[in-house]
């Protein structure tokens, strides 16, 4: 037999009749045991149903205890300095328990005329509830004002079945600040309800629908309390017997700095700019600013957004529903030139002394590739090529390195893959390679395309967060960090449940020695005489940066027009990314203005204002014109 292989005990003759009979005799005792328990159960049934039957019948009729839930206050969201961004306040809803009302029709008519609300709204709420059990309260009016509240409380005798329910509701102390990241709450829908645990959620509960409210639902929601109310035979509530107070949710402290975020959102808003602003601590990966404009009007979502408002958001050409920090992709434009420079240096095709001549264009194949400066830059070295953003220089570096190496270095700086930040629907961008094109388009890579890639156009796509991450990696000496939004999570008792730790994603090898040269070039962009972002300078702090212009697919018919005359949606996107102070970098700031034309003028001032605020009270950081450390 097969099983005997694992049988270490001695095998016995299975068909030993005597032994089998002995075994079967024991079954008698088992039968007896079952009988005993059966008798016990019958006796208990007799006791409950016959002996005490009448008593329980009365209890079932008269002494009913109904269990209800008390919503837990959600955890608060704080900024890095402990300023309250989102907390709770009590809000009052008018609810109807149909079981307690003998004439719902009459009741609603009375209510609608007394409170001056449209009766169809009230009926609508009841229809929405569908066939939920009649004892479950239906919310008729949410978050009512105190006059309504006082009226209903004072006239409760006239409204059988109508009750006031107090639940915690969200308060946004800074309005729409960082709305895309924080997200909003909404009533749980049937699909969400079915996917979740019935012990924790029930119909009518609020649940995080977007942003951290959704991602950190488990931390924020807390634990519901329970109340026990005595109700009479017809379901009328008599009195509260006892309750278990709810346990508030955990508080989450963000790495976001409310003041800096405000500066970013205000300036973008004031200039009617659409786009994104990201600021990050370069040594830790803490995200200080994550702004996407236009901001999400979070107030519209409280208590459910109206159809009209939702459609307006959907159809807005500036896409307020998209969190442009991570969910929108743009060509990186000239900000990509640092990658090309890095690849060139690391592969040894150029060094700091390599001088190339720029006549204003570069001929390759049978095409002429132009430099943005029609007249040409003349003889330029790498540092000048960065500070003056010479396209011709980088065309040649790109060609020498090849597109696959460009992509390899781009990846080392955080482009082409998700950063892993705790935000939803992060896009990974695109760093094109030969293999990618073969797979995606089924075509061979053309070397001419390498030229476009080398100056950040062509197939290249990045998110604003990725450019900030790239800048931070250049600034901190080659360590790619995980951008993080959460400083710590604290329980209501004050225990720290989760604490920020910097997390290294990858680190550059020995090629990190070239970063000093690149930082020098970036320094010249802002501090140099001919830099493209001289306007960003702040007295007392040296800034390194890079401007960029991301081409939007442009139609020929607009080519001859002046930039200001080109229709909005065909204008170029403006990039500016920077870090400061150059001597010992602390912060990286990236600004993208959609259709903002030029990096220096379109995006630079926003970055400048953020740096100004960040270094406020600490300037001048270094004595006049200190020498560079590198």
């Amino acid at each position, binding site marked *: *037999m*097969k*099983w005997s292989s*694992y049988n270490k*005990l*001695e*095998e*016995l003759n*299975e*068909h030993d009749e005597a*032994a*089998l009979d002995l*075994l*079967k005799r*024991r*079954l008698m005792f*088992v*039968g007896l045991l*079952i009988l005993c*328990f*059966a008798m*016990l*159960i*019958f006796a*208990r*049934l*007799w006791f*409950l*149903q*016959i002996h*005490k*039957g*009448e*008593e*329980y*019948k009365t*209890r*079932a*009729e008269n002494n*009913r*205890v*109904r*269990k209800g839930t008390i919503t837990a206050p959600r955890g608060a969201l704080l900024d890095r300095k402990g300023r309250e961004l989102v907390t709770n306040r009590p809000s009052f809803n008018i609810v109807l328990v149909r079981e307690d009302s003998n004439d719902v029709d009459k009741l609603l008519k009375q209510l609608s005329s007394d409170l001056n609300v449209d009766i169809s709204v009230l009926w609508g709420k009841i229809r929405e509830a*569908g*066939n939920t*059990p009649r*004892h*479950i309260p239906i919310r008729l009016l949410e978050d009512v004002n105190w006059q309504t509240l006082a009226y209903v409380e004072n006239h409760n005798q006239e409204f059988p079945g109508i009750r006031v329910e107090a639940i915690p509701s969200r308060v946004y102390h800074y309005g729409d600040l960082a709305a895309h990241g924080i997200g909003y709450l909404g009533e749980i829908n*049937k699909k969400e309800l*079915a996917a979740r*645990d*019935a*012990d*924790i959620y029930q119909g009518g509960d609020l649940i995080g629908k977007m942003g951290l409210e959704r991602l950190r639902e488990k931390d924020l929601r807390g634990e519901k309390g*329970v109340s*026990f109310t005595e109700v009479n035979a017809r*379901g009328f509530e008599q009195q509260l*017997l*006892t309750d*278990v107070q709810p346990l508030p949710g955990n508080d989450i402290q963000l790495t976001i700095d409310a003041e800096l975020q405000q500066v970013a959102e205000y300036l973008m808003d004031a200039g009617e700019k659409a786009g994104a602003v990201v600021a990050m601590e370069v040594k830790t990966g803490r995200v200080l600013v994550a702004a996407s404009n236009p901001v999400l009007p979070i107030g519209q979502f409280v208590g459910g957004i109206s159809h009209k408002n939702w459609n307006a958001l959907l159809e807005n050409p500036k896409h307020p529903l998209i969190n442009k920090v991570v969910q929108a992709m743009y060509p990186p434009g000239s900000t990509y030139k640092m990658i090309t420079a890095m690849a060139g240096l690391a592969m040894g095709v150029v060094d700091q002394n390599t001088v190339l001549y720029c006549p204003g264009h570069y001929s390759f194949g049978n095409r002429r590739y132009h430099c943005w400066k029609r007249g040409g830059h003349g003889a330029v070295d790498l540092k000048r090529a960065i500070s003056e953003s010479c396209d011709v220089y980088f065309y040649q570096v790109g060609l020498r390195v090849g597109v696959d190496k460009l992509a390899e270095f781009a990846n080392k700086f955080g482009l082409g893959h998700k950063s892993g930040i705790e935000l939803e629907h992060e896009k990974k961008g695109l760093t094109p390679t030969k293999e990618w094109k073969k797979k995606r388009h089924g075509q061979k890579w053309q070397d001419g395309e390498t030229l476009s890639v080398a100056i950040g156009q062509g197939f290249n796509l990045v998110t604003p967060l990725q450019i900030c991450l790239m800048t931070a990696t250049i600034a901190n000496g080659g360590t790619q960090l995980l951008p993080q939004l959460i400083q710590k999570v604290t329980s209501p008792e004050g225990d720290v449940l989760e604490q920020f730790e910097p997390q290294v994603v990858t680190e550059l090898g020995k090629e990190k020695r070239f970063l000093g040269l690149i930082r020098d070039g970036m320094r010249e962009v802002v501090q140099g005489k001919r830099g493209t972002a001289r306007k960003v300078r702040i007295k007392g702090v040296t800034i390194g940066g890079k401007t960029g212009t991301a081409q939007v697919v442009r139609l020929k018919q607009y080519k001859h027009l002046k930039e200001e005359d080109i229709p909005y949606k065909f204008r170029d996107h403006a990039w500016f990314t920077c870090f400061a102070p150059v001597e010992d970098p602390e912060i990286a700031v990236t600004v993208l203005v959609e259709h903002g034309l030029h990096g220096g003028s379109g995006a630079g001032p926003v970055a400048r204002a953020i740096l100004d605020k960040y270094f406020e009270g600490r300037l001048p950081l270094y004595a006049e014109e200190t020498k560079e450390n590198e």
Partner: protein
Amino acid sequence: MIRVDRRFLHNFDWVLLLFLGAVSGMALLNLYSASYPPVSWGMPPYIKQCYLFLMGLAAILVILTFDYEELHSWNYPFYIFIVILLLIVLFAGNSAGGAQRWINLGFFKLQPSELAKLMLVITLASYYSRKEVDGGYGLKDLVTPVALTGLPFVLILKQPDLGTALMLLIIFISMTVFARISWQTYLVGIILGGGATVLAWFYVLKPYQKRRIETLLDPGKDPMGQGYQILQSKIAVGSGGNFGKGYLEGTQGHLHFLPERHTDFAFSVWGEEWGFFGSLFFLGVYFCMLFWGLYIAMSARDRFGVFLSFGVVVLIFWQAVINLLMVLGLLPVVGIPLPLVSYGGSSLLTTLLALGILMNVRMRRFQIGQKKEK
């Protein structure tokens, strides 16, 4: 290896099928009432249970095609399979009430801990049927069965699912005692058991589990908290009186006083609507089914058959007793379903598979096809 012999068909266990049909019919009737009025979305529980019941019947047919002796060789692969499922649940399962218990299969959520109960029955039956020790099993002989029980026990306890873990322990004790153990083993067992209980109370049990036990010992201590379920269940059953309130007329259930009324507390709905005599009838049929199971054990052709059918009876019996005593307010709320009656796919399928094994033992009670051996 499939041996279909006409004599097997002739020996088919119509009696057990009749009991099974009667109990399941009443259970579905009850489930309809317990989930009444139907919700507007999703499949109503009684329809879902019907489908699973049909699936289970198909599984029984499959089980009947081979000789139960094959389970000896299927036992260890099955064991390993279940342990892997338990590990998957522990690391990737869906959580309910803070516990990881299911693997979502789309049309239903598989709870491997339910299958683990049946797996343990087969494993222990296979083990004990191979050896009879004079004077009963000593401690050394029990190392393997303890290890075989311990692994799934710990995995299920980790989920945490105290009720099911306890069931494994009860199955182990029942089958081991049935296999006969020496008096020294009894002594050590009692001492270890006592020690473990004390340790469990202080280190293993979670506060909510302690509360449930305390509530039972002293219902006055927390009448509105943990006592609520038990109290409402007692009121439901008690108010049923002699003949009950009538089908679909139970107020406790339909006014939502009764929690978990289609799962663990399904019997309170029956008790409320059909009264003392209705309950007596229902439980009468249910217990007769168990006695018939014992009769099958009596008629089994070999030790393995006896142990298997004994194990299946014990599996269903203890779950039923614990559930009923809980519903009737004599045991704490531990989350053990009433087999065949409580709503839940995994429990139903496991029970039907177990009954399939029982039928198999009955069908092959004569020494047919044994000639080839030895």
